[in-house]
């Protein structure tokens, strides 16, 4: 049997705040955040990401954000492009429908994490997946949540509820 092809899988990490988070987070949140991370996965020469428009793809580095701030090599996969597309189609019908995007709990990083596990068995670095909980554990984050999370009604007084993981 011939050895199966191995396709490299990379994680593209973008800082949505372009450095602002690192500078302002101590002031605004009370804790240091290195960035507001957005990730996408690059495999089979395409970049895949999950956003308010659902699962999308583009040429690597082809989003509005430009080239990634860092690239993490998460390994290789034997999963072929065809199989991967099937997998993505199933995801589109299940966990990652367009309307199921939630900036705190089911966001781009959630997606990336799922996909990387599928492809390589590994998870993405924890500083990325911990971000929502980090933010939500601050008062400012909770306040922010009322704006960003469509399911949350603005609370009367202080923010309530435990910070959520993803």
């Amino acid at each position, binding site marked *: *049997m011939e050895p*199966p092809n191995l396709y490299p*899988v990379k994680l593209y990490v973008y800082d949505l705040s*372009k450095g*602002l988070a690192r500078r302002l987070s101590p002031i605004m949140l009370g804790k240091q955040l290195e960035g507001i991370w957005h990730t996408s996965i690059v495999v089979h*020469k*395409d970049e*895949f990401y999950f956003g308010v*428009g*659902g*699962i*999308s*793809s*583009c*040429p690597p580095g*082809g*989003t*509005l*954000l*430009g080239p990634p701030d860092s690239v993490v090599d998460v*390994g*290789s*996969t*034997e*999963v072929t*492009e065809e*199989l991967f*597309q*099937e*997998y*993505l*189609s*199933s*995801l*589109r*019908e*299940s*966990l990652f*429908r*367009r309307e199921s995007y939630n900036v705190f709990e089911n966001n781009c990083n959630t997606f990336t994490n799922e996909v990387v*596990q*599928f*492809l*390589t*068995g590994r998870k993405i670095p924890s500083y990325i997946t911990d971000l929502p909980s980090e933010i939500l554990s601050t008062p400012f984050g909770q306040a922010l949540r009322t704006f960003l999370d469509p399911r949350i009604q603005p609370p009367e007084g202080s923010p309530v509820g435990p910070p959520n993981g993803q």
Partner: protein
Amino acid sequence: AAAQGPASAPAEPKIIKVTVKTPKEKEEFAVPENSSVQQFKEAISKRFKSQTDQLVLIFAGKILKDQDTLIQHGIHDGLTVHLVIKSQNRPQGQSTQPSNAAGTNTTSASTPRSNSTSISTNSNPFGLGSLGGLAGLSSLGLSSTNFSELQNQMQQQLLSSPEMMIQIMENPFVQSMLSNPDLMRQLIMANPQMQQLIQRNPEISHLLNNPDIMRQTLEIARNPAMMQEMMRNQDLALSNLESIPGGYNALRRMYTDIQEPMLNAAQEQFGGNPFASVGSNSTSGEGTQPSRTENRDPLPNPWAPPQATQSSATTSTTTSSGSGSGSSSSSATGNTVAAANYVASIFSTPGMQSLLQQITENPQLIQNMLSAPYMRSMMQSLSQNPDLAAQMMLNSPVFTANPQLQEQMRPQLPAFLQQMQNPDTLSAMSNPRAMQALMQIQQGLQTLATEAPGLIPSFTPGVGVGVLGTAIGPVGPVTPIGPIGPIVPFTPIGPIGPIGPTGPAGPGSTGSGGPPGPTVSSSTPSETTSPTSESGPNQQFIQQMVQALAGASPPQLPNPEVRFQQ
């Protein structure tokens, strides 16, 4: 093959719990540690109700083959294995985008699909060339590709006027066609440049495959007010984006990567990217004509090669779409803009002049067009159904401005249609020299009309201008009629010129009897009433042609004069 032997395994195989995770669900399986993948799949297939050969197991990035063992891959208790269930027919086109593979896949997937529609896009590389009533006609077969280009150009030119655009859009034929996103997608995809563009920018294929975006685009194209609104929003969003650090660069990049090639592809054949001047901040003389104003440049020779008319037509589209709207805050909306621009740009192309040129140079073209089967059948049906013809003709934007004219035309329609079926007419129309002569006569009459308007009505003999005079009267100021031109086939093409308005009425809704109706049919009374100095059917025919042409002014030449005289 992996060794799966009792030799390496304990006497009693340990049962391990392995979680199998699909994109949709997750199940836990208890299986012997030393199972083979095949056995594992069998257990899975029962629970997931699939065939084993549909199952693809993935662990740690590796695809598990049937003859492997779980141990071999390190699958221990408590670990998760991923599963993809292959469906027999690959699921495509679900609620959202069918595929986000490279654009080539999409292109090749949609091209075969285009064969299933009633419209053959092959003969209309820019798809939208066939609109309204002609939607189905192109599939009837055009006898030459020249004609299809002609048709496209003609319609595109005609649609450069915004009012006309509106008229067209309100035409139920057009609406039904445009509201079919599949159709639109195929039409756009059929453009080879578009395909190229898609290969370079798969995002565009996503755009086209997303029915929502397509629908939105069509809505926008249909509704100029909405388009303006959207453009305005785009501009706002853009300026916001610009203020984000790095945002401007992103915008610029987006523009250069996506918008520009798209527009270039769309515009290539049509005389340049209308955004070129915007992007480069240059102000060319032609490029910066204020939007929505008519082109007041006199066209010295209507039959000369394309001039500023078209670029101003394109510019009106450009400026109305706003400077800097070349990119947008999100790629989706940006591409919508691009697509909308593309759609609009399809409608605004140079070509009228080159069209006329082509016509005069290529009598074969006219012959083809006239003999095109659908043309004949259309004319026949129109002549049989004068009401329909009247309807179509009167829907032409031209006449909405002038109810008098409508009344005039109405009774003359049937006669005109008869006229059109006359083979003599057809042969005369295919004779370029005859047409040129007629044009000269027409110009002469036009000049006469402007120089000595009082003279015309009394100038009856031989030309039957009596009726024509009344036609010329309103025709002068009511420029649009000019383009209506003398002849059905010409209506869409030649004289319509940049004014366009009648254009769509021509191919779009009427294709024939409409606009030309009045002028030529006005000759009908002359047949019976005016004392024709010459005799014989040929002469009569010539007179009719002359009258028709006289009614049609050469594009815009006398109009400014006439208008300014008013």
